[in-house]
Each structure stands twice: as C-alpha cells, then as structure tokens.
C-alpha cells in the first residue's frame, strides 16, 4: 500500500533541472495540482517532455509562465504564444517532434527498446542529422528513446496499490509516460479501496507507480 502525498511534498521530491514527462493534451489529463505545486515551490530549470505546453495560465502553460522550463520536447506550441515568445528570445529551448514519433520515443524508453523506426519526418527538417535505416526495401528514420527522471501522471482514479484507470480523451500520453521514468507520481481524481477498479480496467498497473497524490478535496 502506498502513502498519499500532499502536492507540496511531491513537488519537494523534484530537484532543479529534472527531466519531467508530463501527461496531458492541451491540459486534458494533465496532473493539475502537481503543476500548481511546482509553480508554488518555484524551483525550475526543468526539461519538460509533453505533447504541448497548453495555453498561457493553464496547466503546463503555468510552468512556462513561471519560467521554470529550460527546455521542452513537444509536438505543438501553436496555442501558447508565451512558449513561442520565450523560444524566440532564446530563453527556452524547444525541440519539436511529430506527435506519433514523440509518443513512440517515450514508449521505446519505457519498454526497453533502442529506438523507433518510422517513415514520419523523412524528407523534412525533422530528419536532419538523424540516421536512416532500410528494412525490406523501405526507408525509415531512426528516432531515439526518451526517458524522464519523473513522470507526472493524471488519472481518473487509482486504488491503494496504485493501479490507474483513465477516462476518455484524458488517456493521451499518460499510460505511455507511466512506463518511462525513474519515479512515477500519479495524480488521480479519486482514490478507491483495492478491488474497486476491475483488473480489466487497469491501464497502468500499480507496480509502475511510485507515489500517489492525495485525494482531491
């Protein structure tokens, strides 16, 4: 059984300069209270790996606003002008990765694979400086695995052993990221006694989850 952490306790565990995998798609399925706690603590220099940086004042956008992010690896920043502004000013390093490649690079990092071979990005700026590999007459780009120091996961509910269930479009990067970091902190909307989440509904087994954020009050 795991102990439920307060958001501030969880934020304390994350050191300056950590590499963070943060779930969510335009904030949907993001660990909202963990992000708020990181902003409140004010320690930064993070590398953030996520689908996007949401909008200014929202979700991951709050970390950008607070200038806690030194680098981000994301697929889209079009709805966050502040991310673009910091990038153009040279304050924030941004690596843009095609969305399907990003999720597979994280998956590779989580499941012990040495990389991903994909046709996505061939012949574009994404391919610059990357090796290509031919398999059965088809050319693929070799994309390297990604891992994080911490994965910050938003979930619908968890039980006392940390089994996670997600909902609707709040799955997105969460189940994949929960496999790809040294320390996994899950922020569920609800915490249930063991047995309340049917085994078939568990998308992230509790053995992968190191810490649970306390219930939403």
């Amino acid at each position, binding site marked *: 059984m795991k102990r439920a952490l307060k958001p501030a306790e969880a934020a304390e565990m994350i050191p300056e300069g950590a590499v963070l995998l943060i779930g969510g*798609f335009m904030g*949907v399925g993001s660990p909202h209270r963990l992000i708020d706690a990181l902003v409140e603590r004010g320690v930064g220099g993070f590398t953030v790996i996520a689908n*996007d940086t949401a909008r200014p004042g929202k979700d991951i956008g709050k970390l950008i606003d607070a200038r806690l992010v030194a680098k981000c690896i994301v697929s*889209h920043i079009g709805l966050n002008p502040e991310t673009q502004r910091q990038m153009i000013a040279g304050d924030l390093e941004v690596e843009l990765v095609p969305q*399907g490649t990003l999720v597979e690079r994280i998956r590779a990092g989580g499941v012990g694979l040495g990389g991903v071979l994909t*046709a*996505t990005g061939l012949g574009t700026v994404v391919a610059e400086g990357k090796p290509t590999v031919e398999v059965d007459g088809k050319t693929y780009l070799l994309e390297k695995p990604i891992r994080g120091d911490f994965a910050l996961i938003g979930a619908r509910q968890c039980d006392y052993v940390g089994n996670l269930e997600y*909902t609707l479009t709040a799955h997105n990067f969460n*189940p994949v990221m929960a496999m790809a970091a040294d320390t996994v902190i899950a922020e569920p909307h609800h915490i249930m006694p063991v047995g309340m989440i049917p085994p078939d509904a568990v998308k992230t087994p509790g053995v992968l989850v190191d810490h649970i954020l306390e219930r939403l009050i």
Partner: protein
Amino acid sequence: MDAKEVIARRVAQEVREGMLVNLGIGLPSMVANFVPDDMRVFFQAENGVIGLGQRPPDGMEDRDLTDAGGGFVTAVPGAASIDSAMSFGLIRGGHLDMTVLGGLQVDEKGHLANWMVPGKMVPGMGGAMDLVTGARRVIVAMVHAAKGDPKIVPECTLPLTALRRVSLIVTEMAVIEPTDEGLVLRERGPGVAVEDIVAATAARLIVPDEVPEMVLA
C-alpha cells in the same frame, strides 16, 4: 455559399460508408457538417477518441472529452477511447482511411507544406506529419490563394510536412489531383472558369478537355 462551405461540402463527398476519418482543426472540421446523418462513419480525434460527436449542450461539457483542438465534444454510440500510442498506431499503421488537413502550400509533386512559416509562425507539426505519412488518403482542404498569393506552386518554398504525395486538393475554385504526370484539374468550382483557375495557380496544371463543375447538394 462562401468559399469554406464550398470546400467543406465538396470534401464531404469523398467520405464513404464505413470509413475512419481524421479531420484537422478549422476548415477541415467543417466537413463533418456535410456528411449525411445516416452514413456510418467514425471520426477520429488524434488525442484519443474514435467516434467523435457534436458539441455537447451548454453546461454539459466534460473536461475529459475534447477534440484535438481542445474544444468540448461528445462521442457517438460505438465510440472508443484510446491512448496516444494507439491513436498514432492507427494513423501510421494504415488503419485510417482518410485525413483532411489544411495547407499553406502544395506543389506539382503533390507535396504539402502546412506546419510552419520560418521566422513568422512556428506552431509545431502536432500530428500532421504522421497523418500525411500514414493515412490511406490525404485530402488538402484550403482556399485557393492567400490574399492573391498562389498556394498551389511549382515547388514548396515552406518546410514540407511529408514526402508523401497527397491524394486530392480541394479549394473553392477547383478539385485537383496530383498524379505521376503532375497536377490534373478534375473539377471547377461553382461558376469558375478554367482560365480563372489557371490564372490563380502558380503550378503547371494538366487540363483535360472536359472539366466539369462541382456538383454541390
């Protein structure tokens, strides 16, 4: 009928019974409005839903059910929610029958550029590179010219989205099919003459003897 409605109505005619279809943000998303109600089609949103529905009634939005632009949606009967790895597995793996995307430029080879304007706009590619690389049919839905500047050009000057040749270009003036020989003019917009299309297109067009006018319901 304004330009966007002409485009959306014409693209909707490409949708067939039983298809899995991904519509991009903005103009492409209007296509769903013109698909017959009784046609059994599943729309995918790459953030993780197959079976995207209409907007929910006011006050009944769910924060965990959105489209890829972050807008609130509903799900149709038979819908499924999936994570980003499966979502892009469907896209990259050839399970997506059709994608409709906006375009900044398309050239004589059928190459699409639609994700950045160097020095001006760097929103990121999001899922566009995977969609253009992996979908079975790629339809570009865009206005024919941008404030008088042709968007259908001999060779894209903007960074490419993929090397894959798109299947069809639909504008308010024309339906154009990229082929081995080049861009073939297939249909004229309502009341548009072939000469007008040729004049508004910087790329070389192959003009058959008969170019019928679009039939819009």
